[in-house]
């Protein structure tokens, strides 16, 4: 068999900077933490702030992870995401409230069991809801951002209203399972027990998502599908199914995030999810659309920065997230770890 003529494009060694670039975002977290220590000075406070900041980051990540899939990969601007968070919270918490005997027992095991049950219920519910959402609301508007905003807003409102119909308009206050109340203290530093749980869950979800997206073609199919669905089909993939699947996964994750968030807030309202949306969008954007890693790092940064700033100069806390976003976008207009070229 004949071969083509020799083909040898000139290759110069790429500079050190080029080769380090990919790891820069990872470094930001420790860098920020150290900067925090310098600013905060008092180490006990610093420890408290840092741990709780990281935990807060994890919770934000949990809520945002679903959106990286749906907004990042599938390029669907889903204003309804917040609704899934709320619904997740309501279902989860309702389940929790029925499991009084498990939650009031001062045993960590039983409490976690109860939470697990709540989470599963919430994820199941939001998954189903996600499926319906995709079929009825999102399907007609793939590729059309503005219609997406319109319909998902509609979906959001409907979901919120239904929550009000079913659970009534009052905020629902409750208290966390016994073993998760209060904090562990080291000297003057206090680390809330519940936040440790969220760290665990956050890490678990993060690794799981990474694994799935790296080991399977799903991520590729979705990204390719957004660019050129016809071609993906012509290669032999049932794009619809993949999209539905991913959307459902995203919704279920939102549900999970909702439960964790609700448990943190210890009060749930129909609007709680939507109120978190701006933050969630920010995290997804600075992370780089579609990147789980980026979203994760972004969430941690937001969590930490909020705490440090609020401690050092509360007034600035009002704008810290926004400032962070602007700074990062100026550094990398595509976000920290861009996976999809946002249009």
């Amino acid at each position: 068999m004949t071969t083509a003529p020799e083909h040898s494009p000139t290759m110069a060694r790429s500079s050190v900077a080029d080769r380090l670039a990919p790891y820069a975002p990872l470094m930001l977290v420790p860098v920020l933490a150290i900067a925090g220590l310098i600013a905060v000075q008092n180490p006990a406070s610093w420890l408290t702030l840092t741990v709780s900041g990281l935990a807060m980051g994890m919770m934000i990540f949990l809520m945002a992870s679903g959106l990286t899939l749906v907004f990042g990969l599938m390029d669907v601007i889903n204003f309804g995401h917040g609704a899934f968070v709320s619904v997740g919270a309501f279902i989860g918490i309702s389940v929790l409230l029925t499991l009084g005997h498990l939650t009031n027992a001062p045993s960590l095991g039983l409490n976690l069991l109860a939470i697990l049950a709540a989470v599963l219920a919430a994820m199941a519910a939001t998954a189903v809801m996600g499926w319906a959402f995709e079929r009825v609301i999102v399907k007609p508007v793939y590729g059309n951002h503005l219609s997406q905003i319109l319909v998902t807003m509609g979906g959001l409102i409907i979901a919120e209203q239904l929550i009000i119909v079913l659970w009534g308009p009052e905020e629902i206050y409750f208290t966390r399972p016994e073993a998760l109340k209060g904090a562990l203290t080291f000297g003057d530093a206090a680390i809330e027990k519940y936040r440790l749980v969220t760290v665990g869950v956050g890490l678990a979800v993060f690794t799981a998502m990474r694994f799935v997206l790296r080991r399977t073609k799903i991520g590729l199919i979705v990204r390719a599908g957004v660019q050129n669905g016809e071609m993906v089909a012509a290669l032999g993939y049932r794009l619809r199914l993949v999209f539905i699947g991913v959307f459902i996964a995203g919704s279920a994750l939102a549900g999970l995030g909702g439960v964790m968030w609700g448990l943190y807030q210890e009060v749930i309202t129909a609007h709680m999810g939507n109120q978190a949306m701006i933050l969630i969008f920010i995290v997804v954007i600075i992370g780089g659309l579609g990147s789980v890693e980026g979203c994760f790092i972004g969430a941690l940064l937001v969590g930490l920065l909020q705490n440090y700033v609020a401690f050092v100069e509360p007034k600035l806390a009002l704008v810290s997230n926004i400032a962070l976003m602007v700074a990062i976008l100026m550094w990398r207009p595509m976000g920290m770890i861009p996976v999809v070229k946002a249009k």
Partner: protein
Amino acid sequence: DIKIAHVYGKTGPFEAYAKQSHDGLMLGLEYATGGTMEVNGEKVVVIEKDTQLKPENGKALLEEAYGDDEVDLAIGPVSSGVALAMLPVAEEYEKLLIVEPAVADSITGSNWNRYIFRTSRNSSQDAVASAIALAGDNVHIATLAQDYAFGRDGIAAFREALAAQGHEIVHEEFAPTDTTDFTAAGERIFNAMKDLEGEKKLFIIWAGGGNPWAKINAMDPGRFGIEFAGVGNILAALKGFKDFAGMEGGTYYYYELPDNPVNDWLVKTHFERFDSPPDFFTAGGMAAGIAAVEAIRKAGSTDTEALITAMEGMEWETPKGTMQFRAEDHQALQPMYHFKLRVEDDVEWAIPELVRELSIDDLPIPVRN
């Protein structure tokens, strides 16, 4: 007929308050008219209007009420922002607006005009009541509030009230209105208080979500001997306070606190009709309803000027006992309650127990218009 417009945010985040307020109003009218719904032989008709919590709507709807529906007086709204937008309309149409339950001081303060009466408490009253409840020698008080006009005014009023009794705040913390993570605020407060001797109290004024009590409590302020204090709250919120047994402060209402026939009737009827106890805004709404009826009776007509003269200084009975419209700024002076939280397993919420009732005379509420 006597037409009364109830202009309030039926839908939106305050839906729950709105419902209470309206139920209360209707109960008030019913009670005051002895169930006949008639005053001076005229039927009382209530027209509901939903502001959707939008100030511009509040304005338009009130104009509609005065202009098109030609109501004799209007009552509402829930949110202060809406209320402030509505005030000038009353002046323009020279008709009465009884503000209930919006709380901003400026409604009966800088933005007040003579057509405005308010039956609900203003935020100073909360603050002052709490100040009186909490103050004491060798008590150190820090405050946490939202970083905007409402929060800052509240703390200011609280500060003055404390000062009036020769005490001061050791640390004032303000956090953004949408704060969700209170670790930083908590740390700052702890650092400010941990080395102090004696009783330490953290006084929190917080409207809407965020739930700072639970979050700071999770940081175990007990290790520095810091206790919580705050203004009272609605039943729904009290459910979140079951971990706060012993928390003290001044509150506006809790159905077991007042002891008077009006309240007895309200509690009884409310259980009958909605089989739940009445709450903050039910009581408030009722007070407003009764006030309207009493005023019309006293004035003998619905002529605005007559009503104003009748109402200035008027005293009337409410679920919170006797209230009185102060002539200067038409703010209803009213008793408040110094409470301490008790927890019982079979009650869903933490129960505010009466420490003592703070009568009108105990409460030096500044005139600010």
